[in-house]
Structure formats: structure tokens, C-alpha cells
């Protein structure tokens, strides 16, 4: 495969994209998980599916639009969905999590209608659902590259504010932080990253790349920065390892990436258990 990387453009595309989403998804995932919004990624990925299906439908019916990259409409839907979630969270002040299933089912419903109108599944749609090593085009790569730059700049610039908002929303508001605007910008970043990641991991598994590496790192990390660092490390190992395995065994990369992330999570949980037991054996205090 190393040789393949030099020979085949599609492999280069897949790997460069993989490296980027291996950073982006866990980076945003840390903020999502600590704010207990893990399911938001699921809801938005299903809305993205509706956008992809809509794009494929348009392609089928209007041949002049055939060149349109489904990624764009996917992104539009995903960002739109994130706006709706925020609106609904305002409507159901006491049941804020309700916004997520509402948007999730609307996304699937709309997606299924578009798919049936476009005469059912085809291989293209299949690759969007489960990810693909060969589906990433040079154009996709550039879109994802630009998204990566934007997201990383935004997160670094707003790091202080995002940390305070995640840790203690009331305090953030009391100290005069523009909590609403910052949360809003963050959700749009999440929508963009989901659209960017789905080419490789697939829509159904995007959210796992945002949560599993974080779930592992949160068990062993000291502090927030270390949690981010370990999440990205675990994310990269899963994505790159998953792509290798998928290429050699001819599997859908989404599945292999996610199963590697699960494996890391299980190892970390065991490691932590052993460390605690050791602690008790020495006579230390169990934590």
C-alpha cells in the first residue's frame, strides 16, 4: 500500500482526507461529549444524508447538473439542520434533547423520500452510507482541506470561550461571554466536519469518530488539553489503521475505522481497570 500511495491518486486522496478528519472529528467531539450533546452528530449526519440524496436526485433528473458535487448540498442540509436544532432547543427549553430525535427522524424521512424518487440505491449512495477508499476525488480533497483550515482556525481562536462555555454555561453568561453566538458558530463547525468526514467513514458512522476516541481519552487524560490531544491521537490511529486494513481486505473503510476505535476504547477501559487494581494492591486509594 505504501507503494500504492505513490502510484494511485485515489489512495493519496483517501489518506490525506483521513489524516484531516482524524484531527477534526475528535477535536470537535471533545466539546460535544463534555457538553453531553453526543447525539447531535448523529442527527446532523442523517440530515446530511438527505442532502446527498437530494443532490443525487437532482443529478438524475437534470443532466445539466451532473457535475454537482453531492458534498455541497450535503453541507447545506447539515448546516440547515444545525440551525433547526438550535431553534428547537429554544422552543423546548425543558426538553432540550428532544430537538435531536426530531431532526434525526426528519433527516431520515426526507432522505428516504429522495432516495425512492431517485429510483432507489445505487453504488454511489452506498459509498456515502458506509464510506469508501476509492470515492474521494481531488475536488473532495480540496473542499475538505479548506474546511479543515477554517475549523482549526475557528476552534483555536475561540478555545477559551468554548472551554468556559462547555465547563460552566451559567458562569460563561454571568461573565458576559457571547454564549449564544459562540455556540452557534461551534454547531456550524460540527455540521461542516460531518459533511467532510462522510466520504471516508460514511454517514452512518460519522458520529462514532466524534465520540469513540473521546470516550477512550476521557478515561485516562489529565486535563482538557490532554483529552483533546489523546482523542486526536486515537482518532488518527483508527482512521489510518482502518484505511490500511480496509484497502488490504477490501472492506468498507467506515466499518474498519470504527471497529478499530472500539478496540482502542476497550483496551483503554481494561488498562484503566488494571491500573486501579494495582493501586488498591499497593494499598493506595482507589479513584
Amino acid at each position, binding site marked *: 500500500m505504501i507503494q500504492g500511495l505513490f502510484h494511485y491518486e485515489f489512495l493519496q486522496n483517501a489518506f490525506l482526507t483521513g489524516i484531516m478528519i482524524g484531527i477534526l472529528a475528535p477535536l470537535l467531539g471533545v466539546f460535544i461529549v*463534555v457538553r453531553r450533546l453526543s447525539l447531535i452528530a448523529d442527527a446532523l449526519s442523517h440530515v446530511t444524508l438527505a442532502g446527498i440524496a437530494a443532490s443525487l436526485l437532482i443529478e438524475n433528473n437534470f443532466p445539466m447538473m451532473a457535475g454537482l458535487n453531492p458534498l455541497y448540498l450535503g453541507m447545506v442540509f447539515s448546516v440547515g439542520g444545525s440551525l433547526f436544532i438550535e431553534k428547537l432547543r429554544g422552543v423546548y427549553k425543558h426538553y432540550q434533547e428532544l430537538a435531536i430525535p426530531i431532526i434525526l427522524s426528519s433527516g431520515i424521512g426526507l432522505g428516504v423520500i429522495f432516495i425512492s424518487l431517485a429510483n432507489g440505491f445505487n453504488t454511489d449512495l452506498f459509498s456515502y452510507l458506509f464510506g469508501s477508499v476509492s470515492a474521494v476525488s481531488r475536488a473532495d480533497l480540496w473542499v475538505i482541506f479548506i474546511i479543515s483550515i477554517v475549523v482549526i482556525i475557528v476552534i483555536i481562536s475561540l478555545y477559551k470561550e468554548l472551554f*468556559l462555555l*462547555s465547563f*460552566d454555561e451559567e458562569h460563561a453568561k454571568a*461573565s458576559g461571554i457571547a454564549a449564544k453566538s459562540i455556540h452557534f458558530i461551534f454547531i456550524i463547525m460540527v455540521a461542516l466536519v460531518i459533511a467532510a468526514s462522510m466520504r471516508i467513514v460514511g454517514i452512518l458512522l460519522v458520529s462514532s469518530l466524534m465520540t469513540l476516541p473521546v470516550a477512550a481519552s476521557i478515561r485516562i487524560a*489529565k486535563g482538557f488539553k490532554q483529552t483533546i490531544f489523546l482523542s486526536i491521537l486515537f482518532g488518527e490511529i483508527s482512521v489510518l489503521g482502518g484505511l490500511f486494513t480496509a484497502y488490504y481486505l477490501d472492506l468498507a473503510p467506515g466499518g474498519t475505522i470504527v471497529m478499530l476505535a472500539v478496540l482502542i476504547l476497550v483496551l483503554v477501559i481494561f488498562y484503566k481497570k488494571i491500573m486501579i487494581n494495582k493501586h488498591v494492591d499497593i494499598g493506595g486509594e482507589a*479513584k
Partner: protein
Amino acid sequence: MQSIIEIKQLTYRYEKDTVLENINMTIPYGSFLAIVGPNGSGKSTLLKLILGLLKLQKGQILLFGQEITKFKDWQEVGYVSQKANSFNTGFPATVFEVVASGLTKKLGLFTFFKKEHAIKVNEALDAVGMKGYSNRNIGELSGGQQQRIFIARALVSEPRLLILDEPTVGVDAENVNSFYQMLGELNKSRNIALLLVTHDIGTISDRVSHVACLNKHLHFHGETKEFEQLRTEGVSEFYGHDVHLLAHHHEHGGV
């Protein structure tokens, strides 16, 4: 500019219930004021109004001589909420990171933490007696220690006023005294005005400089000495002119 907070003819209603009525109050620089009152007496509402978390309906609040509606220097006001103990204890942040987050507003957007800020954080930890804890995860600490960390977070932006809403909820009984001792030292050595809402008048009366008794109206506001003198006649009298009304409050365990 004489006083840190000036409240004039403040009235606040939740729908039809009047929670605060015609409150007039002046809090001078450097004072240590305890606001006491039964449950539902409007203490928390008053704090929220002073913090700008609730919108002013009637009356006027001046912070550092500025109208609260136009007030922008929120880094001058530190706040430690009652809810500090109900934060997500599994949150993966070190004590240092939590305290540093108190600088967020002061630094403003698009600026980063520098070395000099780390020095500020360590000073704040020192002031609350928590030096040496900076690399611990916040969830590993006891309730009382966490509350000290939240005070350090409020101190790090060097406020001139620190507002605390029942800060000893979740602090072990034996640590409450040393907690108040620390507050007293902050008040004296750093010359920070403290405004504290509390239930335990007994523990604090020898620490605070002023006491205010609130129950919809402001029934007493003055120096602690004066308060102690009157207190021998029974604390309940501070909460209302009417003795029957007071008996009513006692029945419900309000005071």
C-alpha cells in the same frame, strides 16, 4: 465614586408575585456584606439583578457608579454560584485550566494565555490555599476544595467585587469555618468587597462587616455590631414588622 453598588427603589416581579419591593441599598468599597433571609425572600433574585442575569424592571442599580444597563466591565465582578457544586464532576479539566478560564472575559476574543497569566492563576490558587493542586483533575477534589477553586477562578481576573451565592452548600461542616476565614482574609488583604448570600448567620457574624436582612423588603442593613445588639432580641424580627407573619415563616422552616 463612593460606593461599589448603589440600589435605588428596586422592585422586581415574577409575573404577579412581587419578590423585591422598594429596595434601597448602598454598599461601600471594601465591605464584607452578608445578605440573610428566609427561602423565597428574593436574595437570589437580587443577586441575579446585580449580575445583570435578570433584566431590571423598576428602579436603578449602579455598579461602580455606572448604570447596570450600560455596564461593560464585568471582569470587575467575580461570581461564585450556588450551583458550582452541581457541575459535571467528570469534566476532564485540571484545576489550572478551570482557574485560567476565569480570565476569558478579561482577555477578550482572539487572545491567548501567556506566561504572565499562569502567574496570575498560581497567585489566585495561593490566595485560596490551594497551591499545589493545579495539575489535579477538578473532579478528584472534595466539595469544599472545589468551591475554593471556583473562588480562585473568580479572583484571577482581579475583581473589586466578589459575589457569592450560598457558597458553603456542599462544604463539610468542619471546613465551613476555615472557608469563611479565608474569605475574611481575601477581604482584608486584597481589599475586595464581598457580597455573600447565606443561611448561616451564626458562623459568619464575627467575620462580616455589614449585614442586610431581606424578605421582599430590606428590613435591616447596617454594621454587624448593631446587628448583634438587635439580634439578642431575636433574629426573626429582622424579617418583618409583623410578629404573626414571622411565626408563619417559622412554621414552614423558612428562617
